[in-house]
């Protein structure tokens, strides 16, 4: 067997990120200054983003295993955007906690690379490569605070459960290959339905549901989010979601081909229980990291509505949702990164008490993120939900849309409570501001993004509708 010729020009964004990651790792190990390393990481990511946009929908490569189409452009931009914001957010924390800046930024880049590969996969093997490239750096990052037992525990937990899910995914690939004779998504779509194919598809979905933290495969998320260092949690919450939903957007239309009516109700049911469990469990949280973990689960449920719609419109809605989710979640974590309680992470909701009167802009930003997470206008979160609900109703999935809006109301309760906490009471004396320029810049960017997508959603809407050209 000869390998197909590889057109490296198509892979420029991935190559930039991969080479950049290796260079940063080496530079950091050779004593590169933390600030300079962070600058370099941002430049690499920005260059890759530029390339993604410049290349556009350029075609396919690697023997049709890899494709650069509208969906790729949208999802890779989202992944790179998330990595950019997360790098800016994380830098100062990494320096403060005396972590290895070179390794941190290199791992962030590699995880982004994994999500990018997943977004561009048209073959299960390629998808698996991307999934592993995404996951392994995240396991390491979760355990990145070597001196902190909680971080160690989080890393171990994430690794064990993640390894299981990867195994499910791999086993699913094997069964799908066994029944259809191919790992190419196009060929899988055309394969006649069989029991083996169904089981294989089910296992694939289980693997991805783990990554996306979809109920009932979500149990790891709150513990891992809580234990991992804050900037890692922020990044993980977003990039894992981008990768997993990129894969779902690629896989689901393919496997739905023959047995659409069997899988749509399954996805719909997963979506409903994910929204219900995520939003109701978040009601009980007092820790901000756990709250945002359940919030992340709930939002996976909302995004799954778009997947369950099984239409191009639904796919576009999911892409829009991912961008909105990335900005508002990173922003919310960014606000927490601005403060510290007695030299530790200010990870309790109560730590935010009264901070509005010490820093009104910070509280205003948090209010914007919380309003957006709750899905109230005029924010990105509202438009995102509006699009997925529209897609659901368009596909006749009224029950999904109704569950979605009602659980959104529930979510308003705990999100607004966080914002309200900032405006009321006396600040805790142990809580101090430790932000810095980079976190501030990332916060301004996220706030502006969340508001801009809420008030002027037209450009991004048109951008994500590109995916409609890809999916039928």
């Amino acid at each position, binding site marked *: 067997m000869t390998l197909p010729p590889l057109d490296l020009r198509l892979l420029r964004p991935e190559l930039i990120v991969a080479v950049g990651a290796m260079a940063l790792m080496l530079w950091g190990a050779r004593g590169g200054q933390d600030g300079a390393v962070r600058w370099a990481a941002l430049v690499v990511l920005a260059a890759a983003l530029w390339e993604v946009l410049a290349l556009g929908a350029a075609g396919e490569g690697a023997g049709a295993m890899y494709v650069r189409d509208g969906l790729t452009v949208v999802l890779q931009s989202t992944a790179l955007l998330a990595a950019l914001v997360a790098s800016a957010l994380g830098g100062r924390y990494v320096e403060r906690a005396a972590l290895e800046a070179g390794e941190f930024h290199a791992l962030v880049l590699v995880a982004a690379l994994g999500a990018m590969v997943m977004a561009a996969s048209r073959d299960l093997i390629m998808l698996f490569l991307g999934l592993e490239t995404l996951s392994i750096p995240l396991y390491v990052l979760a355990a990145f605070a070597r001196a902190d037992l909680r971080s160690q525990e989080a890393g171990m937990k994430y690794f064990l459960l993640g390894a299981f899910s990867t195994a499910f995914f791999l086993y699913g690939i094997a069964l799908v290959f066994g029944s259809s004779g191919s790992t190419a998504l196009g060929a899988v779509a055309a394969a006649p339905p069989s029991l083996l194919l169904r089981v294989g598809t089910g296992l694939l979905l289980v693997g991805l549901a783990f990554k996306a933290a979809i109920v009932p495969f979500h149990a790891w998320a709150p513990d891992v989010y809580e234990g991992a260092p804050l900037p890692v949690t922020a990044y993980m919450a977003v990039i894992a979601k981008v990768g997993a939903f990129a894969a779902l957007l690629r896989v689901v239309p393919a496997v739905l081909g023959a047995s659409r009516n069997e899988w749509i109700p399954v996805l719909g049911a997963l979506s409903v229980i994910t929204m219900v469990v995520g939003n109701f469990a978040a009601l009980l949280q007092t820790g901000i990291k756990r709250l945002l973990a359940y919030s992340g689960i709930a939002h996976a449920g909302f995004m799954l509505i778009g997947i369950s719609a099984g239409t191009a419109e639904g796919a576009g809605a999911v892409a829009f949702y991912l961008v909105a989710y990335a900005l508002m979640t990173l922003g919310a974590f960014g606000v927490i990164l601005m403060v510290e309680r007695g030299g530790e992470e200010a990870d309790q909701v109560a730590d935010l008490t009264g901070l509005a009167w010490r820093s009104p802009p910070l509280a205003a930003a948090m*209010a914007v993120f919380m309003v957006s997470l709750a899905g*109230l*206008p005029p924010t990105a979160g509202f438009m995102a939900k*509006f*699009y997925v609900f529209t897609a659901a109703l368009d596909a006749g999935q009224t029950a999904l849309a109704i569950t979605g809006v*009602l659980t959104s109301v529930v979510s308003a309760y705990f999100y607004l409570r966080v914002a*309200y906490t900032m*405006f009321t009471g006396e600040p805790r004396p142990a809580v101090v501001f430790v932000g810095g320029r980079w976190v501030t810049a990332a916060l301004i960017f996220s706030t502006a993004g969340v508001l801009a997508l809420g008030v002027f959603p*037209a450009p991004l809407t048109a951008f994500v*509708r590109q995916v409609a050209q890809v999916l039928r």
Partner: protein
Amino acid sequence: MSLPLLSTLIFLPLAGAAVVAALDRRREGTIRWTALCAALLALAVAVLIAVRFAAGTAAMQFEERRAWVAAAGIAYHLGVDGVSLPLVLLTALMLPLGLLSSWGSVTERVKEFTISMLVLETALLGTFLSLDLVLFYVFWDAVLIPMYFIIGLWGGPRRAYAALKFILYTATGSALMLIAVIALYVHSGTVLGARTFDLIALRALDLPMPLQAWLFGAFALAFAIKVPVWPLHTWLPDAHVEAPTAGSVLLAAVLLKMGTYGFLRFLLPLFPEAARLFAPLMATLGVIGILYGGIVSWAQRDMKRLVAMSSVSHLGFVTLGAFTLTVEGLQGSLLQMVNHGISTGGLFLLVGVLYDRTHSRRLDDYGGVATLMPRFAVVATIVMLSSMGLPGTNGFVGEFLILLGAFRANPAYAAWAAGGVVLSAVYLLWMYQRVMHGPVGSAVPARLPEIGGRELVLFLPLLALIFWIGLYPNALLRRSEASILAIVERVQPAARPVARERP
């Protein structure tokens, strides 16, 4: 027309908020005057629109239409007609009054309070002027956020609970309305050829029946919670009692009208068949609200709670008027929205004036205020008589038209609702007597400063309007007539509207 007047009106307060945000928080005087100027400018624009408004046509005026999200069929479409014009004027009037009233009561975090109020005005005006369902929804829901903070941060002791209850109640209603909005959009594609959220286009849809009833239900729930229609009113007393005076004034005068405005603007024209089907139910709920609100008001010992519960009764009239589906009923309903804004807004301002001086709202603590504050007593008398609907005041015209419409729809409605008129006299006079007459109460200090200056400026426009509308209601009725006729013709295509009697 060069300047888009409606957009100017909507975004003037927001621009004011941006200016205030840039000011130093310690310069409270500058902040207050800047905000007041922005709100007064908006009022000037609103008046300009009213003056240029052409009566006698049901068409939308000053229309602005631009693509907003072309890919999703959402447009930035604004317009004003006889239904929205009175409410726009009411909003533009109440905002400066609310700001002015807060000068004496809100002393902490003035900057944030002022910004919240101005953002609230933008959202409210946008709600009344939007002709695209998504745009409407965005403004409608955006109202919640500043109001949440106004109640939650500057409110009374149980403010956190009241603010959350307010937002959860209303958000539940609007959530289902969002589904209905999208369902309309999806359905419009199959009927109109192109999908649209445009209200004007959607009014031409004749929806099939089960769907129409469902969508009516979703919209009606959202509006009925906002109004609030009995039995969905339980958020209202808490929100009113805990909110600061300015918050209560705006809540009563304007926010509740969002619901009743929704009846006239969306429910009746979009779902005429379902409206006919459910009109007896809605009218009955309105009547129950009139009586229930009146009786419960009578039993209150807290002045603010009393005024809050009286809103349930008054808005019962508005609901009843809208669902008589007659020209008189609808006109009365619209007029009563404005009247309730003026009189109940005024009552909350009066309670605020007293509370600023005594820090008590308990009726038992009061007595003999009339001897100490004679000028205040005069103002209070006029506002109360207007709230009772005494002839010569604005309240009479509205209630009379509603009862007339109710009588034509079903005499039983009118008979029961008339009981509400009596009840309102009972609880208001009872309150007046306890506060104003008798021996001086325990909470009343020996020297009670008389209202003057700023506080007088608060009440003068309200008093002027009470008599102006009471004696010359045609200024408003003439402008709304054509739009109301169009709604009634849409709902009751068979019925020939008869000549309207003018009191």
